């Protein structure tokens, strides 16, 4: 019975394994020995989009594309590259879409300005309201 189950499981899993039948990327799921480097690599991976998934970072995905990129990032970090340089390289290769951290391209300036504008605009509105109430009260009093 157990053997039959094992057989069935492996047969059913075949199409899933087939996706990854290529020789796996060496550092896809292997951490770097230096914890500081691994931390840098992991933090970068969290902000790189898996292009074949539905909105997942490559750090959170089983897809072979994500595994591939994880391995590449670890190898480059191990070789001493700067995380932001690697991001720039990825963006150049795959476009802005690949980076969850919005870049500083002009089309993204409004996005970066939005929080400050909202805060200033809302703050000014609220302040005007409070001040008006304040002064009208004083006049009335």
């Amino acid at each position, binding site marked *: 019975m*157990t053997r039959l*189950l*094992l057989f*069935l*499981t492996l047969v*059913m*899993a075949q*199409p*899933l*394994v087939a996706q*990854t039948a290529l*020789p*796996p990327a060496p550092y896809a*799921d*292997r*951490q770097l020995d230096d914890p500081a480097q691994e931390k840098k690599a*992991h933090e970068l991976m*969290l*902000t790189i*989009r898996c292009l074949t*998934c*539905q*909105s*997942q*970072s490559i*750090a*959170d*995905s*089983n897809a072979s594309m994500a595994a591939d990129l994880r391995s590449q990032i670890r190898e480059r970090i191990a070789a001493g590259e700067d995380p932001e340089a690697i991001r720039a390289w990825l963006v150049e290769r795959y*476009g*802005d*879409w*690949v*980076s*969850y*951290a*919005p*870049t500083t*391209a002009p*089309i*993204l300036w409004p*996005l970066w300005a*939005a*929080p400050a504008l*909202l*805060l200033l605009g*809302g*703050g000014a509105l*609220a302040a005007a*309201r*409070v001040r008006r*109430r*304040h002064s*009208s*009260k004083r006049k009335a009093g």
Partner: protein
Amino acid sequence: MIAELGLAALWLAASLALLQLALVWFGLVGDKADLLAGVRPVAVAQAGLCAIAFLALIALFLRSDMSVALVAANSHSAKPWLYKFAGTWGNHEGSMLLWVTVMGLAGAGVALLERALRRDTHMATLGAQAAISLGFYAFLLFSSNPFARLAAAPEDGQGLNPLLQDPGLAFHPPTLYLGYVGLSVAFSFAVGALMTRNVDAAFARAMRPWVLGAWVLLTIGITAGSYWAYYELGWGGWWFWDPVENASLMPWLAATALLHSVTVLATRDALRAWTVMLAVVAFSMSMVGTFLVRSGILTSVHAFAVDPERGTFILALLLVYIGGALALFGFRVGTVREGAQFELVSRETMLVLNNLLLSVVLGVVLIGTLYPLMTEAFGHKVSVGPPYFDAVAGPIALGLMLVMIAGPVTRWRHDALRAVGGRLLVPTLVGLAALSALAVLAWGRIGVLPFLGLVIAAATAVGSLTPLGKRNLRRTPLFTYGMVIAHLGCAVSIAGMASDSAFTVEKLAAMRVGDRVSAAGWTVSLDQIGPIAGDNWTAMQADVSAARDGGTPVLLHPQSRFFTTPPTATNESAILTRWNGQLYVVLGEPTQDGRWQMRIWWKPFVTLIWLGGGLIALGGLLSLIGRERRGWMKRLRKAAA
């Protein structure tokens, strides 16, 4: 037969909604007061018919009636009954039917339970509720009929997405929908009050329990959904600023702001126009969220029922309702008299700050979520993800926590700055103590945001309890306890988030049976791996034993599951909960040399995130009971007499 019955009930419910709207319209505008007597019974009957339609769909799923297109496309006879049942709303049509059912029931609730509201406003509110329902009935009947039959029934169904085959499905979507759609009541109240020019403190007191109820359910729904994604997706993440997550967060943010401003209106008769505006915005955010999720214009890891064509229909509904409500607001805002005055140092000002910061976060989340769509229109694909939202919403949220410490100890109308400062002494000292302790222990090892998060969480935890100091605890009203507990929950939750992001240890290992690895004081060994079968899946299951610092090992069973209909693999993580955190173990794929890829995380105090969410919901519930108990008791006595 059941399908036809369901469809007939749905058509009848829709026509009753139309009747309800007409009765209110001709009753109020045409001044035929006798028509209004029919409104409440019609609202109740409409809800009943809608519930019948929904029960009919549940019955079809439970019986696996494959002649119904929806069942055939989303169910399978070999599924466990719980997933047949919950699978009713694990698809587009079913979830929209759940939506209108909840909306109908909420309307019936307003018809039966609401007593505090002026009669014409009450009627106008029910009219608005019927008008919103009508749009969604039309959507269901004309473009998403859940009861459509197939010409020839297939042998068996295509199955439910395995990621959804979890007890979470039975609980999370209905709770979230109750919250989403509960906000439609606030929307209808706002429209009703604008129509009948009746925005004042009494109106706010009538609206508050509905807002509070929807907010509690929304809080529970989001908290539960976050935990579900955390253990089901198998990567240890609990929030990713994914569009679907943002879609649930936006109504919550608006509802939280509304909850606070409605209290100002109810207590002090201030912030009238703003409160009405927020009530419109809150439900608008629910609809925007639904549109984003259902239309599939944004890719999401949680979107399971997507259909771009129907997106257009929802977009049209959205424009009609939001546009209509805003236009009404524009026309009538001049008739809303300015409310009561208050001084600069007052609780009102604190609550205005609360509303300001919450609205800014809401604006940022909305813009960040929609931004990729806007740039795509210019042919430029970008992603806006955690680095942006964390960097922007994180600091504002921490600022909000500071306001949360100061607000409850500031008096209404007017207070002295010095006195408020004195009441903040203890939380400030606790914050400074936490700051120095963390600076010594973890300086430079953790990020700025988690660092500040931990400090402010400590200060807020103590600060949230300050309103209870110097009070007779027995005489303290229940709603004050509710506020204290909800605010404490925020501190607890932020502490969990900061701790998870600062101290999580990750260990990836390729293991053979018999291997052991250690991480963060845990020794994890892979004892055995073997096949196992469930109703509609087979799996490889690992026996993993985990021991902390040489203690007694605990057995864990992570699985790698394979489903046949539809063919999918999922990782069932195994989670070991300790008081100070969770050990999270995932069995990955086999490597070519016969080892198994294991992912292991130790997440200190991560459970606080959801514990905090639970406390927030509990606080809301206590507040609701505390405010409304007397009215409920009175009505019960009256009913008994």
